């Protein structure tokens, strides 16, 4: 068939079925927005993991004057400290890097971070314990290091920062799964809507299709206008969803979040750009598939 003839049939079909087409576009846009959001969230979680896991350290806090564990008898002594440091250095290559932070250095850092805050006046310079900041080759080796260090004299406690982060990531993961489940449910609704739209359109045009069949139009050319209509509607829906994603990146992430949360690495434009083709692929793919299945049923012969 000539392209202009098909184009005319398709645009005519879209106009005659306007409300259904609109419903279809909106459903596709909403479900793809959710789908895109869940993809974005997962990229965001991966990005933060990579960034922070790289920076994570194991903190070995040393005894202070008021410590009350059996490994502490008052403040840590210089001998104890040297012992601990030697032990840590002997654990290479698991331990890759050891950094000592004295009580006063910790206080200086704290002062910087909370400059101007009322909290500062409640913390005395020696309330913050001295610590070793240790970087290990693989976060999974934490137990190995901890078991050898924790019973040493002068060590008050050992903290794996990854544990704190993991709790945070679990929450993010939960959010991400929730968004994905909602997106999948919406996609299912979209499929049903596509099927219904096509069914109604096939019924509304049974005269055309019966004539087409009678004059010997091929099955494909009878179905093509319906499929193209679904494809056009879902392409518009996917474009709206992509626009939403770009807007979210521009106004919400870059405009609001990034300037205020400088310590979080946010998804980049490249990553957003990589998600958009998926929206088109999934959106157009499922609508075309759903309409093919429906047409097989309602446009027999």
């Amino acid at each position, binding site marked *: *068939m*000539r392209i*202009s*003839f098909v184009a005319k049939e398709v645009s*005519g079909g879209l106009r005659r079925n306007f409300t259904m087409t609109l419903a279809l576009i909106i459903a596709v846009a909403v479900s793809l927005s959710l789908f895109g959001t869940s993809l974005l969230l997962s990229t965001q979680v991966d990005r933060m993991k990579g960034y922070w896991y790289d920076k994570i350290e194991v903190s070995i806090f040393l005894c202070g004057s008021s410590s009350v564990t059996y490994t502490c008898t008052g403040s840590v002594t210089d001998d104890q400290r040297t012992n601990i440091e030697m032990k840590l250095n002997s654990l290479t290559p698991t331990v890759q890097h050891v950094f000592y932070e004295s009580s006063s250095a910790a206080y200086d850092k704290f002062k910087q971070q909370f400059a101007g805050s009322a909290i500062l006046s409640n913390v005395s310079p020696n309330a913050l314990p001295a610590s070793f900041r240790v970087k290990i080759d693989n976060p999974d080796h934490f137990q190995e290091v901890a078991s050898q260090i924790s019973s040493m004299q002068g060590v008050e406690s050992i903290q794996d920062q990854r544990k704190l982060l993991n709790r945070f990531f679990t929450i993010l993961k939960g959010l991400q799964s929730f968004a994905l489940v909602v997106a999948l449910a919406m996609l299912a609704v979209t499929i049903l809507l596509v099927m219904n739209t096509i069914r109604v359109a096939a019924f509304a045009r049974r*005269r*055309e299709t*019966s*004539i*087409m*069949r*009678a*004059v*010997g*139009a*091929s*099955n494909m*050319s*009878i179905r093509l206008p319906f499929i193209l209509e679904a494809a056009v509607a879902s392409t518009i829906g996917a474009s709206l969803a992509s626009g939403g994603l770009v807007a979210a990146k521009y106004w919400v992430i870059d405009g609001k979040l990034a300037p205020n949360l400088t310590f979080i690495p946010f998804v980049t434009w490249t990553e957003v750009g990589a998600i958009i083709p998926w929206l088109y692929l999934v959106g157009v793919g499922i609508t075309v598939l759903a309409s093919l299945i429906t047409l097989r049923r309602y446009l027999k*012969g």
Partner: protein
Amino acid sequence: MIVFDHVTKQYKNSPQPALNDVNLTIEQGEFVFLVGSSGSGKSSLLRLLLKEEKATEGTVTVDGINVAKLRNRKVPAFRRQMGIVFQDFRLLPGKSVFDNAAFGMEVIGKSRKEIRNRIPAVLELVGLEEKAHRLPSELSGGEQQRVALARAFVNQPRLLLADEPTGNLDPATSVGIMKLLDRINRTGTTIVMATHDVAIVDQMRKRIVQMESGRIVRDQERGMYGHTGN
């Protein structure tokens, strides 16, 4: 060209068969009237020829092709050699006379040039060249029927099937349609026409196949409706 060999058609929820052991041969270029009371099986016979329905028993052969064995994807090509005129016209209300007639060419992929060349000639044949840009709703019943005929004939089919093409028309208009069919027949096209129209059948003096309750009860060359003749 067309052979029905012991064909029986039994619809699912129907007590008697619509066609009962029908044997019929139609040669290329013939003009055949299919007559008989309502429900006698005329439309069913035409539907079998189109492969819109399948015979329960027996074989239907068109041009040497066993219709029942025709592959689904070959059905479109098969139907392209046929023209069909429906009793209820089946025109597309949103399209002009020109576009309705051209529809049969558009959907099988004819070029714009072929369509521009062919349609005016066909519209002239059916006497509608002046009304090419009207919509079906702006035409009389007879004019609409002629558009349907133009659409059926536009691809120059070798076989034209017409199911009561004069069913809704006054006698004078019917005569016009019949003249047209006669002209088309003279170009070599085989025509099978189901009808109740006694006057037309008697006037045309063509072969008559009469059906009753799914059986052929009369098959006569140059016959008259009401007379069994010699």
